[in-house]
């Protein structure tokens, strides 16, 4: 496979703010779409000037709610990318979409703009749960959006949030089975995380609801693995499931610790320049970012050189999220082999030659493993 090189585009706007969400997303009434188009163009051009001659293997429009973009903006961005870099023939071009009817109505135009994969934020197959999650759509609308996506794009995936308050393993198995009827090749299944600074956080602190504890969360995770394996969509990453060959190439770029450029407010990047890995981090506030782009051609804070220690940590942290694991070549002396063997003894990892691989059991305890090993 050619070297992975991804471009992430952040669209920071949503129709409303979901109570669990701590992504860099904002509800805005009047968006100057032309200004955004220009800003994206300038920032892409900036990074292209630093990273000449790379071949783009994936583009990902994330958010926020990128399906609220004007398809013209999407097209403009993709054109700009193609003008500045060469784009691999089989490049994966994903757009995150919310499954409302308004957005589903634009799928055809996104397709024309160059998008070949959508990732739909379905979140739940149950109306009452969708309400609890503060979503704008119903289960029926979600199914409709999925159907349109299936008819429109080469590939699609959707996201579900589970381990919700009071959710039993039985309920979740049933809901997941429902979802599987509409899945094709790829599903992202995230356990609900209570993030600081969200409405859920306040409610949780106030004890309005409880979330499954470690044991219940563990049981839900284990049930998920069982159902998905049976369905032929095993986990290839902690929360991502795919049939063989259907993995998200763009996300694989993160996990394999390849280079990616981050465009748009709050976007992060990891780019190699003169043999040196650098971290880029764009200003989060949309107007600040926009101002910086106008002024400097890019909206990032100062680039940060990744030290050898950090490089090792990041590569392991990301790589071990994958069932395929990570190569420890060059890092052997950083590990305490005794510890790796101890984890092997517990059935949490395997070491095959130079590849350190978490087992399914290990994936669900990854933070503990990282803590123990690094």
């Amino acid at each position, binding site marked *: 496979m050619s070297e992975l090189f991804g471009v992430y585009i952040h669209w920071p706007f949503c129709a409303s703010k979901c109570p669990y969400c701590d992504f860099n997303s904002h509800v805005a009434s009047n968006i100057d779409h032309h200004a955004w188009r220009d800003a994206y163009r300038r920032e892409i051009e900036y990074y292209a000037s630093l990273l000449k001659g790379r071949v783009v293997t994936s583009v990902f429009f994330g958010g926020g709610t990128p399906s609220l973009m004007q398809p013209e903006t999407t097209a403009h961005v993709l054109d700009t990318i193609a003008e500045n870099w060469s784009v691999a023939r089989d490049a994966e071009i994903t757009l995150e979409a919310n499954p409302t009817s308004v957005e589903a109505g634009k799928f055809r135009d996104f397709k024309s703009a160059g998008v070949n994969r959508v990732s739909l934020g379905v979140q739940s197959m149950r109306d009452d749960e969708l309400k609890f999650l503060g979503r704008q759509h119903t289960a029926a609308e979600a199914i409709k959006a999925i159907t349109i996506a299936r008819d429109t794009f080469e590939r699609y995936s959707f996201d579900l949030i589970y381990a919700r308050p009071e959710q039993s393993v039985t309920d979740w198995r049933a809901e997941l089975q429902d979802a599987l009827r509409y899945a094709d090749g790829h599903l992202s299944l995230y356990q609900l995380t209570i993030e600081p600074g969200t409405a859920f956080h306040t409610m949780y602190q106030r004890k309005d609801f409880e979330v499954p504890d470690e044991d219940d969360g563990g049981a839900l995770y284990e049930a998920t693995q069982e159902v998905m394996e049976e369905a032929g969509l095993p986990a290839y990453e902690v929360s991502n499931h795919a049939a063989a060959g259907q993995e998200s190439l763009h996300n694989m770029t993160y996990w394999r610790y390849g280079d990616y450029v981050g465009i748009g407010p709050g976007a992060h990047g990891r780019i190699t320049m003169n043999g040196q890995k650098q971290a880029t981090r764009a200003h989060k506030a949309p107007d600040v970012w926009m101002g910086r782009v106008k002024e400097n051609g890019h909206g990032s804070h100062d680039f940060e050189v990744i030290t050898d220690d*950090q490089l090792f940590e990041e590569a392991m942290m990301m790589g071990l999220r994958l069932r395929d694991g990570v190569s420890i070549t060059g890092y052997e002396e950083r590990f305490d082999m005794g510890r790796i063997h101890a984890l092997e003894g517990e059935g949490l990892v395997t070491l095959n030659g130079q590849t350190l691989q978490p087992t399914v059991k290990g994936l669900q305890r990854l933070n503990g493993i990282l*803590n123990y090993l690094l």
Partner: protein
Amino acid sequence: MSKPLEHIRNFAIIAHIDHGKSTLADRLIQTCGGLEEREMKEQVLDSMEIERERGITIKAQTVRLAYTAKDGIEYQLNLMDTPGHVDFAYEVSRSLASCEGSLLVVDSTQGVEAQTLANVYQAIENDHEILPVINKIDLPAADIDKAKEQIEDVIGLDATDAVPVSGKTGINIDQLLEAIVTKLPCPKEGAADKPTKALLVDSWYDSYLGVVILVRVIDGYLRKGQKIRFMKAKATRDIDRVGMFTPKHVLLDELGPGEMGFITASIKDISETKVGDTITDEKKPCETALPGFKPSIPMVFCSLFPVDASEYEKLRDSLGKIKLNDASLHYETESSQALGLGFRCGFLGLLHMEIIQERLEREFDLDLIPTAPSVVYKINMTDGSQIELYNPVDMPDVQRIKSVEEPWIKATILVPDEYLGGILTLCQERRGVQIELNYAGNRALVVYRLPLNEVVFDFYDRLKSISRGYASFDYALDGYDENDLVKLEIRVNQEPVDALAMIVHKDAAESRGRQLCERLKDLIPRQMFKIAIQAALGGKIIAAEHLSALRKDVTAKCYGGDVSRKRKLLEKQKKGKKKMRQYGNVEIPQSAFINALKMGDDK
């Protein structure tokens, strides 16, 4: 010129805390003109309290007052303020030994308390004439007759001549001063022509003067330039200052028979000036030393560790600074696997331990982990030798032990009737043996013999909570007794946790062990491996808990490429690891041990 003996009165003030000792002392000082009106502030003795000014624990103090009585004679009154707690029982006994009488101050709204009793007994042991003073009679709730009745019933002293006063408003202070002169005796013996003989009452370190020594002269004189000898410390020094407190520092030419005051002799190390030592003239020494001298022996031990390992040096310096002024504090370096480097410290008693810990935390700004307090055990070995055990960790192998002795105390508890049942149960639970149970009005006076070990562990807190704060408690040491004592060891993944080792009675070992295991199970976070927590008695497991391995710990979402955020989290956790201790293949946060120790005995 010093006063003739008949014109001197040396007396102490005995009172339960808050019964008004300091306030009464103020009034006496003020009435005798020791301080002018403008210099007078509240609680003169307390504000001089070397504690605050120079950072001393609890020290005896004296004030010399000039009082012209109705007979026209000017008397020299030496008022002695003694440390008020049994932890300092020996120091108190020496202060009392320097006086011939005591004022027994009883708050007329409260009555007699346990601490009053213990102090009175000490005064009686020192042959004191005791003058009861009924205080706070300005208050509406004052009940003079009831207070007198209690003095007679509970203490057994004649209260006919008790003086009712108010230290606050000054009512009857003149009457009290007159009673001091007429009712209290003058120094019994004392000859100007005999060789110098003086009692070392107390001492403290002053950064300008060096060690200041509080003395009571028996025979002869102490003068500037005199070469003196400390008989027990076997040291010789030249006096460079002689003086008294009024409470201000006033230099004098000499101190004569029966008088109290201070001397300095260019001494830097306070451990040279032992409380109770006899000071005599180097060239013309007295024949025998004063009776009653005892070297100070720490009774209660605990280890102190800095929460932040890098503060070890600071802890050592701070202990050194406290020691400068408190010869009774003992400490030596200890290295614990669970808690790192720290000090094993010996204290005179519980209060002493609390004071030192508090000072280290407040004055020296240290964050400390104290281990459970323990006492000194005497271990009789099979080979006939005896060793003293200061730290449970050092308990020898059971096979080599013939028997173990532990220190006991005699506890005096005064408690309102309705809480008596609870208090008796508590004493019983703590292996107490009842000695006495009497009633005084609606209160019970209970005397128990208890193992000190059972008292150092939160006994006082339990007593207070059972009685809603109404019980008062005091104790005196009462020898060593053999008992079925064993070392309880806590193990994590088969490795002993030194900081949690303790000596317990065999009958209590199992429940104590189970309790600690359960507690640790809740405190230790789950890990990649399962953890065995066990309590063992000499190699035999008596309780065990298993903490199962982590079931789920993973970040579900990976934020579009925001690796830094995850890495920083990991780095933070790694920093936290520095406060972890390794047990087999698991790392246990120090905080788990700290909290296991902190929780005390709550059931």
